[in-house]
């Protein structure tokens, strides 16, 4: 026990007041004359003594009152044992990423987590989290051990990729809302590949003490896995030697040189096997050609036979959709034949495309049904037949895609079909400054996607634009700009479909893009993007998101979506099926999806291949991580067992007693000191 404000104890001097008044003060009596003392007895002296004795209770109360008031100001406190220890929140984070499937890692980690949960003080709050592809909070901070244990037991190994950087960021976000101290026990295989590129991302906030529990061996077991599979998502001609092939890269982690058998499985049947020599800790490529698949969606798999320490990552899934070549409608102005030639040539040259271009003049497009085409290109045709334009608008609203290229005709017609806004004054760079070049390119945009664009702006820097038509970019995404900030390529979402607007032409009069190699890549990616074939098959990593419907579409306008997971179950409720816009692919396997625009897709989902590298973090790194997070690892080894104390102020209780003493003193004093009232 102590005092939070001991200097107030100086007020104890005031205790001398009741001592003086009751015990030390000389009892002074005022002589008062009376007519006679015949009615007063000598015994009155003892009455005074009796009164003084009786007043001792009053004295005691006054003494206690002053003492309690002084104590209340001094703010006494007691140290309550284990109050602080129990007030520390206990986070139990169990790693259920894909790598935890290796050996007994997950079972060991869960066992350790259960033991830690059982060892916590009964009154300590704990919170259970699963950490795979993302941090999942399974319980609120509670003390119900049965509920916590049930939550811990319910965690199953997943297929996600753990990232300690993500873990640190999530916990820093959580600590912004609650600054209470906590102990975080992480049960993981401490995979080295889960480390963040920036170590600072992994550091826990100051109020969280990190305790690491590794369930992995110090040395990583030998593991082979399929690093990548290069296969066409769409295939129209199985005999095409360029496209009808599957190329898989086999990689070994901590492995000796060996020979492995790799098989290609299509729809559950092994159609080809290859033996491949894999160097120690190296890579090898396996090629399967031709890829003979039937029409429709084919569920394919490249598999390493023989098994290893981590058999779960020995297969890679992908889906191939075989169909007839899709037609592309190219609507152009009557006098413009060059655009169709350049665009068709680029489309044919594209390796992955399976499109047949159908070119038609704008005036002849009246009776055409756009829904029969993969997408429609409107090149320098500012005036379309109204019936066709109406059909084209309906086609876009239902999920179709249109690429509009503006040419020199825009100088005479401000209106841009389907786009919704008019063209401004065209910019004829040939007459003013010679030529404009492409200044900004969004390489994350699917039609312009490049993994590592070079210094030449991904090949776009060489393109000279002589004529461009500025447009109002409202409600559209600008993906490329000229050097004078004039938008070159814009995308607008309309209903379930999309419209791309190229503010120059596809001929070689308004720019020299068709003459550059980048044009072929641009047309290829644009065609795949607009046709949507990229979304309908192929493979995705776990935790990737699949857009199911356009974001701008009001609820109820578009149809329901449908998702069937690898187990054949529908993870979406009916309500979600009406409103959900994107879906996270949480598990490895084949997902069957029906989009809001009615198109079906089969997607093979594979775990992140970084999970296959089972090498754990070095002990130095682990020490550095735990030591830099909230306090030393040693100090936090058994936080649940330490008994800390917390000062508990007794101010309220003392004041309550003082109030009680004051009330009693008032009652007694009024009783003793009151004079008897004369009867009227």
């Amino acid at each position, binding site marked *: 026990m102590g005092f939070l404000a001991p200097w107030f104890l100086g007020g104890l001097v005031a205790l001398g007041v009741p001592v003086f008044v009751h015990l030390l003060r000389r009892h002074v009596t005022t*002589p008062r004359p009376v007519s006679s003392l015949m009615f007063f007895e000598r015994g*009155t002296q003892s009455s005074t003594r009796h009164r003084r004795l009786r007043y001792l209770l009053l004295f005691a109360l006054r003494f206690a009152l002053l003492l309690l008031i002084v104590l209340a100001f001094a703010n006494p406190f007691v140290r309550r044992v284990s109050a602080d220890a129990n007030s520390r929140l206990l986070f139990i984070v169990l790693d259920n990423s894909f790598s935890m499937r290796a050996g007994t890692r997950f079972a060991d980690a869960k066992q350790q987590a259960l033991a830690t949960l059982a060892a916590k003080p009964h009154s300590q709050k704990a919170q259970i989290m699963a950490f795979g592809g993302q941090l999942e909070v399974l319980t609120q901070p509670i003390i119900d051990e049965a509920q916590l244990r049930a939550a811990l037991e319910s965690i199953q190994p997943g297929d996600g990729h753990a990232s300690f950087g993500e873990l640190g960021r999530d916990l820093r976000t959580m600590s912004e809302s609650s600054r209470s101290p906590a102990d975080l026990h992480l049960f993981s295989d401490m995979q080295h590949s889960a480390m963040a590129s920036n170590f600072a991302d992994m550091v826990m906030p100051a109020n969280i003490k990190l305790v690491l529990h590794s369930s992995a061996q110090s040395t990583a077991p030998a593991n082979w896995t399929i690093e990548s599979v290069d296969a066409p998502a769409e295939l129209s001609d199985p005999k095409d030697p360029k496209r009808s092939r599957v190329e898989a890269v086999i990689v070994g982690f901590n492995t000796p040189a060996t020979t492995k058998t790799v098989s290609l499985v299509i729809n559950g049947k092994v159609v080809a096997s290859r033996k491949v020599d894999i160097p120690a800790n190296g890579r090898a490529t396996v090629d399967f050609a031709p890829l003979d698949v039937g029409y429709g969606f084919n569920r394919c798999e490249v598999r390493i036979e023989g098994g290893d320490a981590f058999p779960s990552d020995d297969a890679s899934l992908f889906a191939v959709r075989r169909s007839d070549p899709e037609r592309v409608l190219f609507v152009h102005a009557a006098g413009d034949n060059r655009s169709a030639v350049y665009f068709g040539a680029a489309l044919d040259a594209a390796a992955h495309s399976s499109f047949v271009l159908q070119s038609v003049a704008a005036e002849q497009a009246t009776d055409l049904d756009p829904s029969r085409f993969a997408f429609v290109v409107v090149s320098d045709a500012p005036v379309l037949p109204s019936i066709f334009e109406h059909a084209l608008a309906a086609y876009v609203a239902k999920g179709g895609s249109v690429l509009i290229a503006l040419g020199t005709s825009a100088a005479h017609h401000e209106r841009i079909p389907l786009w919704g806004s008019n063209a401004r004054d065209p910019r004829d760079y040939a007459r003013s400054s010679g030529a404009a070049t492409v200044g900004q390119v969004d390489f994350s945009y699917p039609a312009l996607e490049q993994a590592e664009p070079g210094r030449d702006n991904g090949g776009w820097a060489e393109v000279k634009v002589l004529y461009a038509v500025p447009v109002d970019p409202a409600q559209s995404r600008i993906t490329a700009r000229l050097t004078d900030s004039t938008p070159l390529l814009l995308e607008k979402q309309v209903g379930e479909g999309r419209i791309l607007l190229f503010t120059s032409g596809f001929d070689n009069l308004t720019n020299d893009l068709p003459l550059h190699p980048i044009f072929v890549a641009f047309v290829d990616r644009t065609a795949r993007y607009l046709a949507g074939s990229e979304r309908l098959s192929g493979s995705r990593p776990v935790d990737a998101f699949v857009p199911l419907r356009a974001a701008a579409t009001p609820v109820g306008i578009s149809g329901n979506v449908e998702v069937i997971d690898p187990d054949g179950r529908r993870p979406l409720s009916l309500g979600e099926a009406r409103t959900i816009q994107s879906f996270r692919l949480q598990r490895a396997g084949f997902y069957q999806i029906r989009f809001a625009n009615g198109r079906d897709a089969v997607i093979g989902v594979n775990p992140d291949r970084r999970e296959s590298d089972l090498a754990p973090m070095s002990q130095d790194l682990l020490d550095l991580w735990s030591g830099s997070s909230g306090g030393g690892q040693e100090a936090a080894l058994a936080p649940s067992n330490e008994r800390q104390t917390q000062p508990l102020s007794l101010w309220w209780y003392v004041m309550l007693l003082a109030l009680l003493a004051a009330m009693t003193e008032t009652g007694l004093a009024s009783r003793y000191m009151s004079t008897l009232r004369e009867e009227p």
Partner: protein
Amino acid sequence: MQRFLDPEVLAGISSLDLLAKTVVDGFVAGLHRSPDFGFSQEFAEYRAYTPGDDLRHVDWNLFARTERCYLKRYRGETNSQLTVLLDASNSMQYTSGPPTKMDYARYIAASLFYLAIRNQRDAAGLIVFDDEVREYIRPSTRPGQLARLFAGLEQAEARARTDFAKPLEHFQNFLHRRGIAILISDFYENPETIIDTVAPLRFHGHEVVLFHVLDPQEIRPAMKGSMLLVDLETDQRIEVVPEYTKTTYRVKVDAHIEELRSRALGAGMDYQLLVTNQPLDAALREYLTLRQAGN
């Protein structure tokens, strides 16, 4: 002089009828109905005329109506003798606020003198005593008697202790004619002793009235703390606490007053407790009413 003759006091007393309680030794007790009518004669009876009767008493109106001669008889009026015995001991000095008991006693005595001499035409006398007789003024109806009595009251100062025996013995030696004796005192003495001392007056045929003058603080003392009480007569000191005065003291005082009252009435005397905070006229009126009720 003027302070004794407070017109309000006199007016209050004159508004009441005084009926003499008894008629002693052939003296006619006067009945005072109203000061407006002065001396009044109360009709008693008619008696047939007999030779030798005074013709002044014949009711000639009745004779004129009936031709019968009757005498109209009245109740006789006689002069009484009032003697006030005023206690002038030290205890009469006590006061909790003006007036002192001594002053209050003076007011009562003066009022009674005035009433007796001016209205009743009675002889009035005064004996001022403590443990000795300090002043003695013989009862008389002579002119200037009232002034002498007032002067005697003025000169009466409280001192020494109370002793009823000596003044009463003196009183018995000088007063042979029966009358009304009013003893004004605070009676701090044993009631039995007081009555035994005063009783011989009653035996001589005097009408004895005890006026017990007390201060309100003597009946219901209010004390906020313990006090050292000093006896005004003996200078004895006693420390007293409020609790005692609230309980035992009051019981004792009440018992003393009640015993004195009962013993006085038992001895054929009248007793009246007068508290100094009561108005003078109220005190006298209360007494006179008491006498009237006693008849």
